[in-house]
């Protein structure tokens, strides 16, 4: 691992730790939902760094799938917060 990769992974892990702090602390449900959404975007960043480090392109495929599924999950949670039925 080059120093650049070490620093990059350290920064992303620190960012994820801050997100997890907000997921645990709350204080309301939307706080946790926003933090989980941000965590999903950070995981996309992790996938990119793995693609950078290994030079394999399937990590980017994982990142695309993760971004889409995280989006759908967050929208479902937002609908739940709004208090509406899911098919409206």
């Amino acid at each position, binding site marked *: 691992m080059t120093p650049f990769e070490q620093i990059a992974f350290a920064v992303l892990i620190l960012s994820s730790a801050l997100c997890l702090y907000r997921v645990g602390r709350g204080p309301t449900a939307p706080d946790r939902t*926003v933090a989980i959404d941000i965590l999903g*975007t950070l995981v996309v*960043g992790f996938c990119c760094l793995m693609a*950078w480090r290994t030079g394999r392109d399937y990590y980017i495929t994982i990142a695309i799938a993760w971004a889409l599924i995280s989006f759908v999950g967050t929208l479902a949670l937002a*609908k739940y917060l709004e208090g509406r*039925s899911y098919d409206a």
Partner: protein
Amino acid sequence: MLEQIAMWIMGVGLAFDLFGCIGLVRLPDVYNRAQAATKCVTLGTCMILLGVALRAFGAPDGAMAVKALLCAAFVLLTSPVAAHAVCRGAYLSGVKLWEGSVEDSFSERAEEIRQEQTTEGSVDREETETA
């Protein structure tokens, strides 16, 4: 040379990620946190993807570069929409603004939406507000 530029772009993106997450911890209410974190982390992740794409353009196979750009486009489209939906849900579920907030443009429209929902009678508002 191309790799050097890609590393600089990724470094700036990582800094944006970190500052966005600091904002997520430090700011006072849901709406502030959502806007700080969403904007910074979206841009930061897009810049990381751009860096990966830039290095992959120099490599023999360009598939990785195209995939990375596609993923950047997805993140750029979906992340603000998700944050908008969550903030709307937060407002309609009754989360209060920070006491230092100066403007609340959504309050009238939110009232209309609540009345529409009660006339539809499809949802029990009391239950979601106490939850």
